[in-house]
């Protein structure tokens, strides 16, 4: 795999990883807010 391909894969992986981390944070907040209402 040359540098161009490696960086393309890294860029796509970073995009997905950052979104996954944030959506996990949102899911935690969502559950906590449900508990706060109860």
């Amino acid at each position, binding site marked *: 795999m040359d540098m161009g391909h490696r960086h393309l894969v890294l860029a796509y992986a970073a995009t997905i990883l*950052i979104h996954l981390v944030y959506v996990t944070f949102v*899911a935690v907040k969502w559950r906590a807010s449900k508990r706060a209402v109860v």
Partner: protein
Amino acid sequence: MKLWRWLWLAVTLAVLAEGFRVALFQVPMDAAQGDVQRIFYYHIPSWVGMGIFFAINLGCSLVYLAVRNGKPVLALKADALAVASAEIGVVYCLIGLVTGSLWGRAVWGIWWTWDARLTSTLVLWLIYVAYLLLRRFGAGPQMRTLAAVMAIFGYLDVPLVYFSTRWWRTQHPAPVFGGAPGSGIDPSMMPAVWWNLAGWVMWGIFVASMRYVAEYRTQKAEQDEALRLLDAEQELSGVSGGAGR
């Protein structure tokens, strides 16, 4: 989670999957840069998403400042949406910086350079991270007012970022869309831009709506609890005052 949210999520994931397929396997390879140019199809939607959500944050901050004394429910909603949009805006900005840096390493041979576009974008990211830290560690209604004012000043950097490649000579490539005559990409590459743009903006709307609901519910519960305690305190002081007479 309501049915429309599941439907929105299903359509969003389908659009993102199609965007992935079109960007990687359908549109032709860039003749000058090779396959690394395909980073562009994730890089551009990140900046568009960032622009949309920071603009929503600005609008909500203005609404909050305008109605915070007269319409508390609307103010609470505006404030919750401001937080949600700032967070997803920061996420998109971070992705834009990371993907841009990876592209720069492959094409320029360097990870980073302090040119006007990159520096103003990093400053923008730091401003909104500071905004979120203020929201996280501050407390009370004054914190919300201060955060709203900070958001308005923070947004001043957005046009600076946008126009930086037009006003100054930068290492960052000249504007691809809306730039000089002859700028833009080949029409055969546009489907990858449109699919990913639609998919990532839809994804942002989905996540921001979830975050908004969570934030509003939490703030409402905290406010109700504070009002309940205030009522109980007033009742108690009324009883003790009555006993003293």
